[in-house]
């Protein structure tokens, strides 16, 4: 049995190594494809990542603290702050109109008296604090304050999540400035000279909030960080599934040139010979996979793209790669068995792989597609593969986490092989 298996693998190797078109399809095409797709999609991915919002800021106060607020907004990389439009100073009416027209995402209006209010408030807080500690200070020396609001005017089409995010960001900014004012006034009241710098704001802040690994779980899907991270695994899986073409082709060719008949005349189980074929092509798929990962890591940077990040578990990566390879190869066996002519199998094989890849999120991530497609896509083996790899690459999960995807792929493979055998038996009359 071992001899029959190894001999078959060797035979498949010799056959494929002489099939120049098949080799080109398996290795050259996908390499070009992933580099091209990564380059083409680089811009849209960057846009999404580095999107800048155009906003209007009206400073009606024009004092130290309001200026600090404006500077704070300018420092944020997410906003591009405008105070004029077409070289004209803006007022509130103008700003509202422009936001309504969608020319700006939103406008921030800082009311008159903001600086004074903040200053008063912090002085009051500090005075009360010192008073309660038994230190002398004049708590009544401040004017009564009335509430002041920083207004944010949103585009009417703005999503509520977006509004909340902006509100939060503004509040954070204001709170930061207020805290700083409190500290300043405290050091003044305590007589600490300004240049002593006894209490600097940034020294107080021991915990900073920093955004990390932008994971959007709203669809149970991971946000992809860049073009390489999406395109390399996606097109690798696509190319692996394209094994359907040469594999289906050799099965049909063997039927046509009579070598299949010769194999059936031979003693021993035909299943072993099929297994030899499957194993060889699984090996080919695996080599494809490794090659493309290497291209992702080493070749992408040559084109000015980021290098591919593989995640933590290389073992899990190998497992899912082999599961994808089995699914692709078995699918090819099925296609080669069902159809009786090469043109039928070629057409159906390639069209079905393209369709499965489209609904499986290969072309663009599934979460940007309509809900219907997302639902259909959940049944595409290419989606299972891509999802598994994304779990490893982006979520840094391990084998246990991707096990469902691996099992789905292997189940699909078993189903294909079973159906292929069934069709083959049916044709034996």
């Amino acid at each position, binding site marked *: 049995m071992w*001899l029959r298996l190894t001999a078959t693998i060797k035979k498949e190797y010799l056959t494929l190594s002489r099939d120049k078109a098949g080799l080109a399809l398996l290795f050259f095409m996908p390499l070009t494809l992933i580099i091209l797709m990564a380059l083409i999609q680089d811009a849209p991915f960057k846009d999404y990542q580095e999107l800048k919002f155009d906003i209007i800021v009206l400073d009606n106060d024009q004092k130290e603290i309001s200026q600090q607020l404006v500077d704070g907004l300018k420092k944020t990389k997410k906003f591009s702050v405008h105070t004029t439009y077409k070289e004209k100073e803006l007022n509130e009416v103008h700003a509202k109109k422009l936001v309504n027209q969608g020319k700006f995402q939103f406008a921030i209006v800082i009311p008159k008296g903001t600086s004074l209010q903040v200053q008063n408030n912090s002085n009051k807080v500090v005075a009360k604090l010192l008073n309660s500690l038994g230190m002398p200070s004049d708590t009544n020396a401040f004017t009564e304050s009335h509430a002041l609001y920083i207004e944010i005017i949103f585009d009417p089409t703005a999503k509520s999540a977006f509004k909340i995010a902006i509100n939060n960001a503004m509040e954070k900014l204001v709170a930061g400035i207020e805290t700083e004012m409190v500290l300043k006034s405290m050091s003044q009241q305590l007589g600490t000279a300004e240049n002593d710098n006894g209490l600097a704001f940034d020294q107080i802040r021991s915990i900073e909030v920093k955004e990390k690994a932008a994971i959007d779980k709203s669809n149970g899907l991971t946000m992809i960080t860049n073009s390489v991270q999406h395109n390399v695994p996606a097109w690798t899986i696509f190319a692996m599934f394209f094994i359907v073409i040469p594999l289906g082709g050799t099965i049909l060719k063997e039927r046509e040139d009579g070598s299949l008949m010769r194999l059936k005349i031979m003693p021993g189980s035909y299943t072993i010979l099929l297994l030899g074929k499957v194993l060889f092509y699984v090996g080919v798929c695996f080599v494809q996979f490794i090659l493309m990962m290497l291209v992702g890591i080493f070749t992408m940077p040559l084109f000015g793209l980021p290098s591919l990040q593989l995640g933590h578990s290389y073992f899990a990566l190998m497992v899912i790669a082999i599961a994808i390879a089995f699914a692709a190869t078995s699918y090819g066996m099925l296609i080669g068995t069902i159809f009786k002519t090469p043109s039928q199998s070629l057409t159906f094989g390639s069209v079905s792989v393209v369709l499965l890849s489209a609904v499986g999120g290969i072309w663009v991530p599934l979460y940007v597609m309509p809900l219907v497609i997302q639902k259909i896509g959940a049944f595409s083996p290419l989606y299972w593969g891509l999802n598994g790899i994304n779990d490893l690459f982006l979520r840094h999960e391990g084998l246990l986490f991707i096990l469902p995807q691996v099992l789905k792929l292997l189940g699909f493979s078993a189903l294909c092989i079973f159906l292929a055998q069934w069709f083959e038996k049916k044709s034996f009359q």
Partner: protein
Amino acid sequence: MSIVAIHGLYKTYKDALEPSLNGISLEIPTSIIFGFLGPNGAGKTTTLSILCGLVKPSSGKASILGKDIATEMQEIKQLIGVVPQDIALFPSLTATENLTYFGNLYGLKGKALKDKIEHYLDIFGLTNNAHKRVSQYSGGMKRRMNLIAGILHDPQLLILDEPTAGVDVQSRKMISDFLKSYNKNAGITILYTSHMLDEAEKLCDEIAIIDHGRILLQGTPQSLIQQQEKCHSLEEVFIQITGRSVRDN
């Protein structure tokens, strides 16, 4: 003892209107060359395909070397050699690669297999083209290769379906000389079909003429010629028995 025994074999292919085999019964004695002759579409290939397990009979029984084709096909496959009517080789592999693979599938390997391949390539004049891909072979070379692929594992019964179809006089003589000596020297039983009646007449110890899925005549070439009136050759017997009309199936 007969090496092949067929009893009442019927076969109607799926979707076919008429049966291809209409109750074939046949006994082939051991160590002879048996000719299975008949016009196009007579049912020769169908019969041989049933014997080597490629086609299932609709009804009837057959056994080879005492083993039932319905239950002991795996054992039978190891004991018979088959040379199909159509070339059955891997075109992108060389002669040596093809034969090595087939040898491996029969459980042969190493030097024994290598020597055997060289031996047969030499006998059939293919040594110089041993490392050429079969797709680049001429029709006659492919036929000879097809034959070698059927005998690598030293079968006890060799079944050949038109081994000399479409080959030149030289190749045909090479093949028929080989079959003769293979039968005489090794005592291998040969069951073969051909449309070359003069070749069959010279080569065969016994003959059956089949048409429309039925056996019409069976016996030694000489006895068949003598039995038929005004016949001096197997070809004349054949025409008299099967008629002059051209087959359209």
